[in-house]
């Protein structure tokens, strides 16, 4: 291996079996029975380039030798986006971190791709600026990783998806060329947004930033009715001034937290069933003091009951800590969705009905990320130590996706596992366009193969639907909450 890369120090390449094993998983563990017969998730080697030139060198060699390359940053995704499915090399980009250069006059910043959102914002705040948006995984999620994914989170409601904030990207293309792409270039930078590492490796990012907000204010509301909660989120998302973010959660989410041993801001009955209609809404305004004050006025028209400000602040401070719910597990599975805001109440009610009927604990929370769109997570606890139970729980995700589809929703992110939903994610024309880009930039198909463009067996629509239906039914039996 080192002989292949004369310019990369040997201590940046490993074929150690245990090390490789650690690079063959992401957030959501999947039982071997669903993986081993179909995919080769163990990389042949892991390479940690130290700079953009070394990244380009790896990609060039990979194309020459037709070796699959899987870019991996924080690996805070859960659809095997960063896990190889055909072996090859995992390209750990994490050493391309830092290099933050602010252009205060233009309100833009350049950074290396593996800087985390938390780090970038922290550095900007010290200089009087702030990022416009960040994922609720900002402590680990990298700039390049979020650009490569769907790129919506906190702040997107006000400032749009991360794609809208990009000025330029430096990319190592599969032919080994390092290219700066902009909105006007060919290929344009849009191609690399949500490309999930299938078109090249991002080695530098330039994006717009905002002045550090002069004021911010957080308000927590309790609701007794999920429809009212949904309608309020939808209404507030279109209100002026636009909130920086709106977070919402149902009683299932709060129950998961309580079961994990955490304090929750609402009183819930001792038993989860019948499921309470209660829910929470956190509205956060950031900006000029006058704007934030106007935001407070808007909130007087919300129907929920405003909770004390210390609870609102606590909820805001926990905005990156939704994974606390995992203490109700030990395992937690989730359907992560785009959902039209005007159907939010309907979806929350439908999840409640499904959970109530089947005596399951399902918690839903999310963010309004556009005036008409929410990013929603429906979570449910399980235990990966019990393979059958866990397999059934995995199948149940499709039940939630189907339920969301009936409300106009679709999965958020593709990777390997969501490729089963491609027809829901893209129109035939959109998919065609994506495939054309892939064929043009990566003709040998070495960049993160097996993801995004087509489903591999057993994720073909028929096998997948059948399997998930059966397994999901298993979860309805095995995942039942004990009275």
């Amino acid at each position: 291996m080192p002989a292949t890369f004369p310019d990369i120090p040997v201590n940046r390449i490993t074929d150690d079996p245990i090390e490789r094993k650690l690079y063959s998983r992401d957030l959501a563990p999947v039982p071997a029975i669903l993986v081993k017969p179909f995919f080769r998730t163990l990389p042949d080697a892991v390479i940690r380039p130290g700079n953009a030139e070394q990244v380009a060198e790896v990609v060039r060699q990979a194309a020459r030798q037709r070796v699959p390359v899987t870019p991996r940053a924080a690996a805070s995704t859960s659809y095997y986006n960063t896990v190889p499915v055909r072996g090859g090399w995992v390209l750990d980009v994490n050493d391309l971190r830092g290099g933050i250069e602010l252009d205060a006059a233009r309100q833009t910043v350049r950074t290396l791709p593996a800087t985390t959102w938390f780090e970038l914002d922290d550095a900007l705040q010290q200089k009087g600026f702030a990022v416009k948006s960040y994922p609720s995984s900002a402590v680990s999620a990298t700039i390049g990783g979020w650009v490569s994914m769907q790129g919506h989170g906190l702040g997107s409601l006000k400032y749009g998806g991360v794609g809208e904030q990009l000025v330029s990207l430096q990319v190592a293309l599969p032919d080994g060329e390092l290219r700066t792409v902009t909105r006007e270039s060919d290929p344009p930078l849009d191609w690399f947004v949500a490309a999930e590492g299938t078109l090249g490796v991002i080695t530098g990012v330039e994006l717009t930033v905002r002045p550090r907000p002069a004021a911010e204010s957080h308000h927590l509301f309790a609701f007794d009715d999920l429809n009212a909660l949904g309608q309020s989120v939808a209404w507030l998302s279109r209100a002026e001034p636009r909130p920086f973010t709106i977070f919402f959660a149902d009683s299932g989410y709060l129950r998961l937290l309580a079961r994990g041993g955490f304090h929750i801001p609402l009183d819930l009955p001792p038993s989860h069933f019948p499921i309470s209609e209660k829910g929470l809404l956190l509205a956060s305004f950031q900006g000029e003091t006058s704007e934030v004050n106007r935001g407070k006025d808007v909130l007087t028209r919300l129907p929920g009951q405003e909770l004390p400000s210390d609870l609102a602040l606590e909820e805001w401070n926990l905005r990156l800590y939704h994974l606390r719910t995992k203490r109700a597990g030990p395992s937690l599975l989730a359907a992560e969705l785009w959902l039209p805001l005007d159907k939010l109440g309907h979806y929350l009610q439908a999840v409640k009905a499904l959970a109530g009927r089947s005596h399951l604990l399902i918690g839903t929370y999310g963010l309004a990320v556009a005036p008409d769109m929410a990013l929603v997570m429906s979570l449910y606890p399980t235990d990966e130590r019990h393979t059958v139970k866990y397999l059934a729980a995995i199948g149940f995700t499709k039940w939630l996706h189907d339920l969301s589809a009936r409300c106009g929703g679709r999965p958020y992110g593709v990777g390997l596992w969501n490729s089963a939903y491609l027809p829901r994610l893209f129109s035939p024309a959109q998919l065609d366009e994506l495939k054309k880009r892939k064929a043009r930039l990566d003709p040998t198909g070495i960049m993160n193969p097996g993801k995004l463009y087509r489903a591999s067996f057993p994720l073909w629509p028929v096998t997948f639907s059948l399997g998930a239906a059966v397994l999901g039914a298993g979860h309805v039996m095995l995942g039942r909450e004990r009275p």
Partner: protein
Amino acid sequence: MSDQTFFKGLMDESLICAYCGYCRTVCPTYVEVGWESCSPRGRIQLIRLLLAGTPLSAGQMTRLYQCTLCGHCAQVCSTRIDLRQFWLEARAQTVSRELSPQGLATARDNVARTGNVYGYQNDERAGWVEYMDDAPADLYQRDQAEVVYFVGCSSSFSPRAQRIAESFVRVLDAAQVSFTILGEGEVCCGFPLLAAGMHDQAQTLIEHNLERVRMTGARTVVFTCPACRMMWLEEYARHLPGIRLLHATELLAELMAARPLPLKDVNRVVTYHDPCDLARNGGVYDAPRQVLAAIPGLQFVEVHERRERGLCCGGGGDLEMVDPALAQRVAQRTASKLAATGAQVIATACPQCVRTLARGTEQAVPGVEVKDLVELLAEALDI
């Protein structure tokens, strides 16, 4: 995040770990090494593999010891795993499977033989007092006292850290505190063994030290070493009801608030490095800053990474015994960040931080001095 602890044991916690990676970029050793196996979540996976019966070598388990026990991972953990507890129990597992690094077995044998990790004769423990030209006739070893100063191995034996002990006893004298040291009656507090996963071997040491402290009738035990203080709080305190266990900076802040000391100007730019075991793990943030604020002339500049987010010096968790080169790299990076404040002096409150950061500055930012806070105070007292 709250300080609530949820620890359910190694296997359960390793399952609860979400693999979210929040712990990665704050980990001082992962940042240096870069491989997933050296990230906190990677180490958790290694333990999970070990518990599941995967044959792992001592070499592979070294990753578990390439950790300073700085606690930063626990502070950011998205599922609130008490990772400090996790690492200590995980290390105990490697010891029981005879997979711990050789350097630690040597330290254990040294402690068993001599009562200190270095393997020096324990009757030399108070040797530093004999070198003080104005030491009192009793060499600070008194039968009865209100306060016991538990010096710790580092300040007893390491030449650089001995200056801390020397400064502290002078400051205590200046503040007219009735105190004693235990001299050769003191043995290692046991923390290096606990950190090595050898909890049981620490018990004899604990019993010995407890007995010595009880004999003095003291109502306060004071430490210049934050790791000793942590160890006493966690393992000794329940046997010493009514006795206060304080870090030197806590005692000094208290004394100085009650009666200011006659301090002279120290006209230097000083920053403060929060020792992990005093600050993030030990909860003491304000006392050292109060002491610094009382020194006239001193221009204090805070480093951005401070308090709960304080940097690690690289010297904790027995890392120096297992991988001194890695400890050194961590120290250099931290020293550079601290020096970037423009400080002429990096003040801290831990002999181990002083030792490692002094070496780190020597290589990365020569000319920047590293001092324990009690040394700065002694300077301000002109003693």
